């Protein structure tokens, strides 16, 4: 028991420590996003505050504080060059927190500090959204709340743990309330557009393909997208994910070429397959679909060769569902202009290849499939499938076919298409991803950058575009196995992520990694991208959404939770002693008639007071008062006297009716 005058609005010494802890906890996850000098300033301020706390320093003079504020302001202006980015905002808040730390000793200061700390806590999520960061932030908020409790406790109280316990008791019941609100709070679009100040580096496939582009991607195990299936996924050999179709060749590089606005016609044969794609940020416009999409999702449109082109760059993780045809006839009827476009190559490029193609075509009696077989056989004989092929010159296909004879999928695809075009067979390159790692626990395929692939589509009379994959000729295992199984021994594979990705490729480590991955994915789908699911989910659970239903869904769980807390907090006031309980009933009855016993009034004095105003009630109460006093103040047989008192009270209760 302690007692203080609260005239002085000071906070306790332990509260000062709590402020420091709260600030550090909140700023820590922003570590890598803040300029080094801001972190140093923060550390310096903490150190200074600790010196003040231990009494070795005094609070800084106002002139020192002024100098600090000016210096820090100038520093911010110089670092961020006056652009109001998110980083700048967070740096500003952090700097403010640090400087404020120096001068907290009153409640007001501490409150400002903690409210800003909570705002910083929210802005952490603009940078990091991982499951671990979220769990960490939950604890950080717990610490901030503990600091807030410590601000309001007795300024003389020194225990450190008491505020934490109290914060825990506040946070625990708030958690289910949060879940309810999270579940039903309507998500509306942004009120005004905001620029997320993230790196805008493009990742993944690029818009053109020259030798070495795809093999470069195998250096990274960065996530490209995940595809969720209702049932079983397609067989590995059918997992061709189209992203781009490249139709123009300049002798070395493939580009999309002039695009037509007419979407090629698709005849679906047999079953289609439905799936949902959660695509990572790529800062590129294209989306992914299994060969070949039937309709474009809301966020994109179909291009002429049936790839998906987003309305905007994918600057954050997006989610869409697609339906694809597994067997189909695509673009069966092409105009002669189009046929001409798809078989065009620069006349003077790769002369030896063109000659070879013509020779083979003649040997095959002008049969296209015969030519394709010949090409594949040739690849199969002497070619090497490697991640680190030798660089190629200006006539890349000539160099590849006649000199190096080693390459990655883009080399084989490019060579095949050039050979086919040399004899006037319409063909084009498709880039995208092939395969994927199946996670059976959550039914999804994970595609990473090293799954990038390039293949060829050839146009055959009466069949339309047909997918052929020259890689199967030289390395059929690439299609059957996952890329990482195949390449894990090769030097260039995952060169950019040297350590982390190499472990856990087999055995229980693989299991654990898969579990972690599926957890992460579930986190992304159900928490980070919940707004995509919300509408459907609410409709599934509640049927038609009316405002009334929403209110009920909010109120019923909320009142249950709050009711439970109230019961915990003040529901257990049941009086153990039966006599006291009966007496309570008696007083309650009197209270209903407007007669209150003063808290410091004995039963006797109360009934004496009643005598003046309500003699008839006093008559009833007086025997109770007398026996009560006898019981408590005279040396009598307790058990017996209790019984008498009990009878007395019951009598009075009866009379009061």
């Amino acid at each position, binding site marked *: 028991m302690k007692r203080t005058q609260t005239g002085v609005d000071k906070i306790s010494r332990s509260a000062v420590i709590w402020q420091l802890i709260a600030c550090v906890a909140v700023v820590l996850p922003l570590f890598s996003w803040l300029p080094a000098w801001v972190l140093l300033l923060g550390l310096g301020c903490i150190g200074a505050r600790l010196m003040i706390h231990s009494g070795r320093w005094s609070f800084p003079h106002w002139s020192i504080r002024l100098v600090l504020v000016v210096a820090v302001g100038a520093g911010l202006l110089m670092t961020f060059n006056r652009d109001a980015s998110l980083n700048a905002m967070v740096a500003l808040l952090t700097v403010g927190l640090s400087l404020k730390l120096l001068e907290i000793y009153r409640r007001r200061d501490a*409150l400002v500090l903690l409210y800003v700390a909570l705002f910083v806590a929210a802005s952490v999520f603009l940078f990091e959204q991982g499951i671990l960061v979220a769990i960490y932030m939950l604890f950080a908020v717990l610490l901030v709340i503990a600091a807030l409790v410590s601000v309001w406790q007795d300024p003389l109280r020194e225990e450190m743990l008491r505020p934490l316990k109290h914060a825990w008791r506040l946070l625990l019941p708030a958690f289910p309330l949060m879940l309810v609100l999270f579940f039903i709070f309507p998500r509306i679009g942004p009120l005004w557009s905001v620029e997320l100040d993230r790196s805008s580096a493009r990742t993944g496939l690029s818009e053109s393909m020259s030798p070495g582009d795809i093999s470069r991607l195998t250096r990274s195990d960065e996530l490209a997208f995940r595809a969720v299936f209702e049932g079983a996924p397609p067989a590995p050999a059918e997992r061709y994910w189209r992203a781009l179709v490249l139709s123009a060749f300049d002798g070395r590089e493939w580009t999309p070429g002039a695009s037509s606005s007419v979407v090629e016609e698709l005849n679906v044969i047999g079953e289609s397959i439905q799936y949902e794609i959660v695509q990572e940020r790529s800062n590129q416009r294209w989306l992914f679909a299994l060969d070949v999409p039937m309709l474009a999702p809301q966020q994109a449109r179909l291009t002429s060769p049936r790839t998906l082109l987003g309305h905007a760059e994918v600057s954050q993780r997006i989610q869409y569902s697609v339906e694809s045809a597994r067997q189909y006839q695509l673009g069966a009827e092409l105009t002669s202009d189009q046929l001409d476009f798809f078989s065009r190559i620069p006349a003077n490029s790769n002369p030896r290849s063109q000659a070879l193609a013509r020779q083979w075509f003649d040997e095959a009696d002008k049969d296209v499939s015969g030519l394709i077989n010949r090409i594949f056989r040739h690849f199969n004989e002497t070619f090497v499938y490697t991640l680190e092929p030798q660089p190629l010159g200006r006539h890349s296909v000539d160099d590849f076919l006649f000199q190096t004879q080693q390459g990655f999928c883009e080399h084989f695809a490019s060579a095949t298409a050039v050979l086919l075009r040399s004899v006037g067979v319409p063909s084009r390159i498709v880039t995208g991803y092939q395969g994927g790692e199946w996670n059976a626990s959550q039914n999804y395929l994970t595609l990473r950058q090293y799954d990038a692939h390039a293949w060829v589509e050839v146009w055959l009379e009466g069949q339309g575009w047909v997918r052929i994959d020259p890689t199967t000729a030289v390395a059929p295992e690439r299609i059957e196995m996952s890329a990482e199984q195949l390449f894990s021994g090769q030097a260039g594979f995952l060169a950019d992520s040297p350590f982390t990705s190499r472990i856990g490729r087999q055995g229980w480590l693989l299991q654990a990694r898969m579990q972690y991955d599926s957890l992460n994915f579930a986190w992304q789908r159900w928490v980070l991208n919940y707004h995509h699911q919300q509408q459907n989910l609410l409709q599934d659970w509640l049927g038609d959404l009316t405002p009334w239903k929403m209110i009920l869904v909010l109120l019923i769980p909320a009142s249950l939770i709050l009711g439970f807390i109230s019961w915990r907090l003040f529901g257990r006031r049941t009086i153990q002693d039966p006599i006291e309980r009966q007496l309570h009933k008696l007083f309650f009855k009197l209270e209903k008639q407007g007669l209150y016993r003063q808290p410091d009034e004995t039963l006797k004095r109360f009934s004496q007071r009643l005598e003046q105003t309500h003699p008839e009630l006093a008559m009833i109460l007086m025997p109770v008062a007398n026996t009560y006093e006898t019981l408590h103040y005279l040396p009598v047989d307790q058990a017996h006297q209790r019984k008498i008192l009990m009878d007395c009270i019951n009598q009075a209760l009866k009379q009061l009716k």
Partner: protein
Amino acid sequence: MKLSLFDRLTQQRQGKIYIFPTKAGWGFMLLLFLLLILSINFENNLAFALTFLLSGIMVVAILHTYSNLVGVTIDRSNAQACFAGEEAGFTLFIGANKEREHQQIQVSWVNRYQINSVDRVVAVDLIDSSQVAVELSLPTRRRGWCTPTKVKLQTVFPLGLFRSWSYHSISAKALVYPSPVSSQNLPATSGAGGQGGLTEQSGSDDFSELKRFEAGMSPQHIAWKVYARGQGLHAKRFASRQDLDIWLDYDAWPEADQELRLSRICYWVLKLHREDRCYGVRLPDREWPPSRGDHHRQQILQALALFGLGSRQ
């Protein structure tokens, strides 16, 4: 005479608890609003979650602040007498169920006296104890009974977002004596003994005897030397004043009004008591024959305090 439901609801009930956001609470709501805007604009579900978590905490804080005051009562109270113009001291025993903790219960008067309430707020914690005594003082202006109307118990614990408060009346009342006003001389009319005027002089009369010290004797007369010899506390008695009865007469100051007369009597009572002399008091309606000691002084002071006020308080 049963009260109607309306009456029961509207009367200010003893210990009824009110609750309302504090300034810090409104500030917190502003913070929540800003966080909500942030979450909506960045479509950031984790920021939404944080906003909702803090909202949940705020709602839970209502219950905690409320429950911090539930069951806290003023078990009993007592008061210390004082002189008009001084502060009457009240001791309030704040009690609660021992099983639950109550922190930072601020005890103050209901601000009806236009006093600067900030320095009259005392905050107490009830942790591991079921009762704690709080000293509150109340300025007095006039003699008589000083009866504080109500005591406000208030708390903002644990988060300072909400303030809950309740009113409690206490039964203690403090006796306020007239403020002592000195007068150089006692008027010649001092009484039946007729010993004439007595000027203020320090009593250095002949020492007559040692008496065992009893409560109520003036500490000035303690025989310290005797005490130092280890023979216990004794008081020195002086013979010369023993037979000299002093009468303090209400009618002795015809020029003064009632209050001034009472104040002067009060002054002399205190002075004579300090000097451990025998004195009697004569008021228009009563008189006390000369005597000495605490009880005597107490009786007279109380009579002075309540003189002319009747029995209405």
